[in-house]
């Protein structure tokens, strides 16, 4: 074993998720096989529905755009060590904030107006998710639970507003807010090319992932997030404002998910209605975990899962599978990704020799125990 270890680490970073996703697809095939379907046909349809032709690519990219933003909503707080999963609620609030702005003030048409409605959605969601960070830092409320609870409350608020005070009387069958003025709506990038209906949300999503990735890697402020997440004690010792940084990370994450919701309204639905709440916030959690919370890895992963979502309707049409089949595939993928985490750092030793695996195992510390050490050290310092 004289190969350089950093080579192993980067090979693993790619191999492990790929292996996990392959395992998830295998499991899904077996699952469908139990239901009397041919697994080969299921896999073929999954691929065809996701990446088979120009139309499915358009569908895939349309679905991938919001996933990139909802994944950032998990990935940014994750840099500071928080597991925030309220993306679905933040997305709903973003949609609400976007649709609500014309209710409260006159909005100029054109790009400026579009930017204003998007910003309004992002701001509302940012404040909402920042609350989870505030509760965590000042009251030690577990942020995973609080963010999901806040998410449910946000969805209830959304439904209340859409079906109550903000309802457009013209929307009879499907309660909606008043549609955005056409000058505020976001159009397709290049309607005449192979991209078809794919709207500017995709560009915004990719740009956000690239920019946040660069921010985390190349700026001191972005780096401070990762210091807080890596070791909160060190962060305090070097004088970082830990609380402020955690809340900032939550707010930025919330803003991303809110932006996703606002874009859904401005580019797809034209008004806020129940179709906006379609589980994209939850899928974003999975995307972020598969990408190991690395913003640069999010776009390809989001495209993959956007593709699975797009293929879901094909599976439904051709094989009569329930629309929840995509959820099952996502569930398998999540379980496999977490299971693969256990192999990190030992994939290559495992491949070459068995005893090495045993040695590594005894020296591994569970993260919870590590944190206990940190806390003990905190007390000593205090």
């Amino acid at each position, binding site marked *: 074993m004289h190969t350089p270890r950093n080579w192993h680490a980067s090979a693993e970073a790619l191999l492990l998720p790929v292996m996990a996703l392959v395992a998830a697809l295998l499991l899904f095939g077996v699952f469908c096989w139990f239901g009397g379907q041919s697994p080969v046909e299921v896999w073929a349809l999954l691929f065809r529905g996701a990446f088979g032709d120009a139309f499915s690519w358009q569908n895939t990219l349309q679905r991938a755009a919001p996933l990139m933003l909802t994944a950032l909503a998990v990935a940014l707080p994750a840099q500071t060590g928080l*597991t925030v*999963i309220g993306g679905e609620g933040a997305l709903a609030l973003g949609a609400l904030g976007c649709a609500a702005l014309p209710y409260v003030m006159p909005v100029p048409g054109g790009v400026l107006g579009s930017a204003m409605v998007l910003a309004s959605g992002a701001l509302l969601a940012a404040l909402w998710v920042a609350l989870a960070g505030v*509760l965590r830092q*000042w*009251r*030690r*409320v*577990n942020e*995973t*639970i*609080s963010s*999901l*609870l*806040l998410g*449910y*409350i946000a969805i*209830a*608020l959304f*439904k*209340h507003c859409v*079906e*109550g005070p903000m309802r457009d009387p013209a929307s009879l069958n499907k309660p909606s807010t008043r549609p955005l003025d056409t000058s505020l709506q976001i159009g397709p990038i290049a309607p005449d090319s192979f991209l078809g209906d794919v709207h500017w949300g995709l560009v915004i999503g990719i740009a956000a992932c690239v920019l946040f990735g660069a921010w985390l890697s190349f700026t001191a402020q972005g780096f401070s997030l990762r210091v807080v997440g890596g070791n909160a004690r060190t962060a305090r010792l070097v004088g970082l404002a830990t609380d402020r940084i955690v809340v900032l990370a939550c707010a930025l994450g919330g803003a991303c998910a809110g932006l996703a919701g606002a874009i859904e309204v401005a580019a797809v639905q034209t008004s806020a209605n129940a179709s906006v709440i379609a589980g994209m916030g*939850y899928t974003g*959690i*999975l995307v972020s*975990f598969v990408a190991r919370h690395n913003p640069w890895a999010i776009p390809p992963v989001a495209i993959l899962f956007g593709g699975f979502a797009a293929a879901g309707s094909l599976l439904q049409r051709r094989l009569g*599978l*329930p*629309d*929840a*089949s*995509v*959820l*099952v*595939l*996502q*569930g*398998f993928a*999540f*379980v496999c*990704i*977490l*299971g693969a*985490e*256990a192999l*990190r750092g030992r994939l290559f030793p495992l491949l070459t020799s068995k005893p090495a695996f045993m040695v590594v*195992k005894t020296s*591994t510390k*569970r*993260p*919870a125990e590590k*944190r*206990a050490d940190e*806390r003990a050290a905190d007390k000593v310092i205090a």
Partner: protein
Amino acid sequence: MNADAWITLLLAIVGGAVRVGTPFLFVSLGECLTEKSGRINLGLEGVLVLAAMAGFAGSYLTGVWWLGVLMAGFCGALLALLHGALCSLPRVSDIATGIALMLLGTGLAFYLGKPLIQPQAAQIPSLPLGWWSASQQVQSALSINALFPIGLVLAALMHWGFANTRPGLVVRMAGDSSDAARALGYSVNGVRIAATTAGGFIAGIGGASLSLYYPGSWNEGLSSGQGLIAVALVIFARWRPWRCLGAALLFGGAGAVGPSLQSVGISGGYYLFSAVPYALTLVILVATSSTRGSLRGAPAELGVSR
């Protein structure tokens, strides 16, 4: 509103507290058992939904309600076993696994439960505790889920078991000091897997109560976050089974406010009332968490209380 309407409302809320609270009771007892062993299972949300589907399917296929309940418990235990096993792997966080199982459980339930949305299944019988009263409202408020007394017995059993039995003490030891458990020759992971699985079984019974008693049918919106609220309830209950009962009834009452108001003719703000349990959970979490140190009564190994 006049006095009569107030009494109707109050009775509806009291009855609703038991009706809505029963699943909360089972899920929070299951989570209590899991957390006592030192792990948190956020996946109980997935367990609840999957078990509700399985319970409905079992009752529908066999026509016997208690077979449905057993089926629900069994499926819940199976999914929780997956949680326990995954978390035993090195570097796998129990919070992340819980989120994964939330997705997997709801996905499986929606997939397998597609054909179950229309039919009717044999329901869990109710116990008419209001027989002594002539009033229709009292009778309906006091006609309670047959599983509720079982939950009471279970809470008593857990309360006694944690203090007085070997398995109870071993579970608490695994949750308070894994080193001590290891030193005495117990496999910490083994204990935690067993506790998580048993907790999943108990939570699964709560799922059956959703699909076979109230609301009493299977649909995809059956549980939105009730399993998660139960996790927060356990923190509020300070990891004590008896207090889980009180917390479950309180939340059942909060959840029953919206439907009760509707029953007396106030229907505005339905969605806002449906959000009351979530808001209440949040308020309670804020109130019971402390800014310094860990929570009183919390198992020392538990991640959520740090």
